[in-house]
């Protein structure tokens, strides 16, 4: 515990990494009541931190409005996007925020059960989380009649994943919880109406939930002061790759890429991948773009590449990831990704025509539009953006393609 306190001290930030005392969020929430919680949340403008950016207040309201007597709140701790590790930091160092967020969520929507879906790779965190839950129970923050409130009982269980990136997709996660293959469902119906075992279910990212106690405590107005109009508050960025100080940083939304690069002491940067393998790759000329839902959106993954990196190889690594991690149920994604990978191999071997490459970019567009879930809808992002933004490097130097004079 000592060590963790020291670790914690090293972090600082406007919202998540600011001072917080265990239990205060829940206490305040129970005082405020459901209506006011939703009001503050709405006022704060908090949007999902898991990638999709759906307004959290709306999600809670939708499932809160449902009359079902059984509801669930699920914390999505499947953090699998390449280059993302901020949820791990929250779970290890700020579990109180995450769990209190779940408790407040449960109170607000009328759920009695919360489930934290922890990716199998993080099994080593399980013990400390279980211990923490035990402590919360002792402190009456969890269990029957929370903080003496007769009308509110809530429990949290932790369930492990087993190594499948797609299970981070909320409906795949629900399938996985139900004991099936992690294959995303058709939508509509949405989980807020028909989720786990058919009951209304709110699925939120770890970071989203961790923001909630702070918002409840200090108000939506306070939260909004950070960030931009469309992207309120701050964001945890997981920075890795070619920089001297990789790690998790809490910065307000609206920070530009260039500013971020300065903070992490990146030198000779050629490119930045924003949003992990499913995100987009920006060249130097676009480093003035700002991080936020309105511009360069991201679930927090920032991967930095310096001048020495071969962008085609980077792209290949991403596409190999998707070929393996696609759930394989729908055509555009199951076959589309392998076609994009094949194209990369053809470019490597200088065995392609530009019309072929254009066909594949169009295919990428179809995958974005017609895939069943976010995985297939975003896996072509890096393909399209890297081939576009680094075409000189990729096509200029090592040839022009076989049949292109």
């Amino acid at each position, binding site marked *: 515990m000592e060590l963790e306190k020291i670790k914690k001290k090293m972090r600082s930030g406007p919202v998540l990494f600011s001072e917080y005392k265990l239990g205060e969020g829940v206490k305040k929430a129970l005082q405020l009541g459901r209506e006011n919680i939703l009001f503050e949340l709405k006022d704060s403008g908090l949007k999902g931190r898991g990638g999709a950016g759906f307004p959290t207040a709306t999600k809670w309201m939708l499932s809160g409005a449902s009359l079902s007597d059984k509801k669930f709140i699920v914390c999505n701790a499947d*953090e*699998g*996007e*390449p*280059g*993302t*590790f901020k*949820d*791990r930091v929250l779970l290890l160092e700020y579990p109180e925020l995450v769990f209190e967020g779940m408790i407040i969520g449960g109170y607000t929507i009328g759920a009695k059960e919360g489930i934290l879906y922890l*990716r*199998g*790779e*993080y*099994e*080593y965190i399980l013990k400390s989380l279980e211990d923490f839950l035990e402590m919360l129970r002792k402190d009456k923050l969890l269990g029957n009649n929370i903080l003496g409130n007769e009308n509110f009982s809530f429990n949290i269980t932790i*369930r*492990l*994943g*087993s*190594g*499948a*990136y797609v299970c981070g997709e909320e409906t795949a996660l629900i399938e*996985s*919880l*139900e*004991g*099936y*293959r*992690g294959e995303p469902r058709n939508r509509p119906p949405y989980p807020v109406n028909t989720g786990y*075992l058919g009951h209304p279910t709110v699925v939120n990212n770890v970071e989203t939930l961790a923001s909630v106690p702070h918002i409840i405590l200090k108000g939506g107005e306070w939260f909004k002061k950070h960030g931009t109009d469309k992207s309120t508050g701050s964001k945890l960025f*997981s*920075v*890795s*790759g*070619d920089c001297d100080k*990789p*790690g*998790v940083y809490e910065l307000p939304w609206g920070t530009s890429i260039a500013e971020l690069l300065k903070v992490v002491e990146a030198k000779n940067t050629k490119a930045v*991948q924003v949003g992990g*393998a499913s995100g987009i790759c920006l060249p130097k000329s676009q480093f003035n773009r700002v991080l936020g839902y309105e511009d360069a959106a991201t679930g927090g993954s920032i*991967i930095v*590449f310096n001048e020495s*990196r071969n962008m085609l190889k*980077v792209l290949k*690594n*991403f596409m190999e*990831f998707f070929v*393996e*991690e696609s*759930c394989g149920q729908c055509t555009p994604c199951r076959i589309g990704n392998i076609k994009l990978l094949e194209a990369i191999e053809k470019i490597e071997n200088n065995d392609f025509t530009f019309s072929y490459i254009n066909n594949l970019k169009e295919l990428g567009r179809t995958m974005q539009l017609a895939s069943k879930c976010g995985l297939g809808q975003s896996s072509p992002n890096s393909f399209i953006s890297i081939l576009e933004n680094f075409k000189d490097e990729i096509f200029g130097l090592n040839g022009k393609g076989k049949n292109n004079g």
Partner: protein
Amino acid sequence: MLVLEKNALSEEIESLVNQFGKERSALLQILQAIQRKHKHISDFAQQEVARMMEIHPVEVNSVVSFYSFLCTQPKGRNIVRLCQTISCDMAGKEKVEETVQRELGIKFGQTTKDKRITLEFTNCLGMCDQGPAMLVNEKVYTKLDPETAINILNEIK
């Protein structure tokens, strides 16, 4: 498989089913428990799970084959999973890979003759700021270089 072993396994699965429940939503937890203990879920185990949960064996097989951390064939006592995703790749995963293969005399995807170690690749472990990273069973090791990786592997039984 000996009858005795079969009976023991059946009993074990039965107690797991009692512990986690017979509902379909318990399936993954039961499979994870079997995998943790036996390092694989044998065809017999899959059928026993199916029988006790009243689902079809092929459904169990389908689930097992979907998840990277579940498998049907026996593996080594220790499973070493080296991250192959981009940040670790850039941080020197290849060197670790080569050294480890040379040292153990097996390729990734294989198991040492003494069944001590199975080498596998995995995707991003959420340790990208401290790459290269690897999992040894459920424990994570970071900032590997060839030397530390070998030391870690030599430590494990």
